[in-house]
């Protein structure tokens, strides 16, 4: 077993669950999240020996970019729905969670990625821009538009930050 492989498998064992959570926020679907994460990790193998330092930012970059690519290739054959399959009438906490889940679902993948990286992963604007391969100004505008849209679509999220 090569050193590269050992490092990779150690990294996967340590960070798989956390990365899966990020993938879930990006995709909104459990199965899609797993597929996305596994594709991203497989892709990361090709450059694993060249990665200098912490590999997580590199894997995260693949993750968010791969998600945008997947969305492009799948948007023609997927139908979106406004109704959730779950019955969310009971617990207010569940209602809140479902509302956020649904709110994220109406965002474009890049806007969604900006929200996840900035407010879940707590990356700076520059790190977010770097991960997505876009300008910092674009990160700002995408975040602003995404937050406004979340507030408009779902009033129960009106207490979201106005700007970044």
């Amino acid at each position: 077993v090569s050193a590269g492989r050992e490092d990779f498998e150690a990294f996967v064992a340590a960070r798989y669950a956390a990365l899966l959570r990020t993938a879930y926020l990006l995709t909104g679907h459990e199965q899609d999240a797993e597929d996305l994460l596994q594709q991203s990790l497989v892709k990361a193998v090709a450059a694993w020996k060249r990665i200098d330092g912490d590999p997580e930012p590199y894997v995260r970059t693949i993750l968010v970019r791969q998600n945008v690519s997947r969305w492009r290739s799948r948007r023609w054959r997927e139908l979106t729905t406004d109704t959730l399959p779950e019955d969310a009438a009971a617990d207010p906490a569940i209602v809140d969670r479902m509302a956020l889940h649904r709110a994220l679902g109406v965002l474009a993948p890049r806007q969604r990625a900006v929200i996840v990286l900035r407010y879940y992963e707590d990356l700076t604007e520059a790190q977010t821009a770097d991960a997505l391969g876009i300008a910092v100004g674009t990160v700002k505008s995408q975040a602003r538009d995404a937050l406004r849209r979340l507030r408009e679509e779902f009033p129960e999220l009106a207490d979201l930050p106005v700007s970044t």
Partner: protein
Amino acid sequence: MATELHDRLSELAGHTPAASPPPDLWRRGVRRRRVTLAGRVVMAALLVALVGVGGWTWHAARPVQPADTHGSPHLPDRFYEPSPWLPSFDGPPGQLVAVGAAPHKSLFHTREGLYGVTASTGEYGFLDLPDADPSLGENESVAVSPDGRYVAYWLRVRATGKPNGSGAGGVGVYDTSTGSSALFDVTTRHGLYAGGLLWADATTLAIDHGAWQSGGHSGGGATGAPPWVWVMGEPRPKAMSISQTVWSMLDVGSTTTAQSGLLVSPPVVVDARTGRATTLGRGPNTGPAILSPDTRHIVTLQGERGNPSWLKVFTLRGVARGGHVEATEPRVVRGDRRVYDFVGWVDADHVAAVTRTPGPDFRQQVDSIDIHSGATETLVGPDWVPEIARDLLSAPSAHAHEPPRPWDRRDLAIWLTIVAGFGLLFAGGRLWSARVRRT
């Protein structure tokens, strides 16, 4: 407030079902890397092949210069049929050693074109001759002057009525040293009959012509007229001053040859400029004949023209500059191959003639034949024999290089279309990608 959103997102993410990573991620990654690498290698190979083909095509389209001849005129040891995709000369080609007609193709059509071979470099190129109609002419549609400077050709028909399918509109003379053309336009009812073009000397052109009596493609008759004589430097040709009898013997279009300003059509020899005629007594009285540069011998073919034959050599007892000249009984001279036609003279004792090898797959070439002994040497090898500037038959021989064979431009267009198609697809993909990024 950002903290609240972080908490909400964390809570949502916290409900992600736990899952274990599959054990084969590394192996899948390695396999993917190999497939990607193989794909890149294939693409690179295709790119290299495409560049190679393009480079080869570009290289093949470049004119190939023959062996260094130090800029002096020479006679190539053979000629080639030019590629129909060969380009035209960029400018005046300079002295030509040969001219001919051959198909000339462009992207959308094929037509007859006139090409030349330069005397100093052996380069081939089509000639952009103004208003030319290379399909005309009873025998040759183009005539190069003995020194290779001028090219005479027929002009496209000009008719007040329905033009004859074989009608011409006059004669043009292209100066290879300046690139200019002198045009003699003639408008008739149905077009001119294009009988023949023959250079009597370096600056005197004899033009056999007539006038078609009907239009269309059915042929019909043409009225004749004494040949025109066009001396270079004069604005237009003049009718040759000859009697009806002499005119009836001159067939500029086929059997007549020329030497030192004299048109030779046994039993007469006519000075092209003055019209002065010499009759030949006891000499040849029919068929093609050629007068030696020293005007001492007339050589004809034994038998009919077109039926390969040996040489018959007559010796003249005087100078063919008017009056009557007797000739001796002919000597039959047998060379190595049967003679089909005359081209000119290498020197006073060696005639250049088109010969053919016997057998069903005859091959024609130009030989130098000693008119005394019949000793034969190959001047121009088989098989392609254009019209050669006859003064250059005595020029030093040089090894000929095959002219370039440019790629068929239609194939090139198809490739360019494919490449452009891929380019558009790529550009479209980029635009689509950019549009998606903006959403």
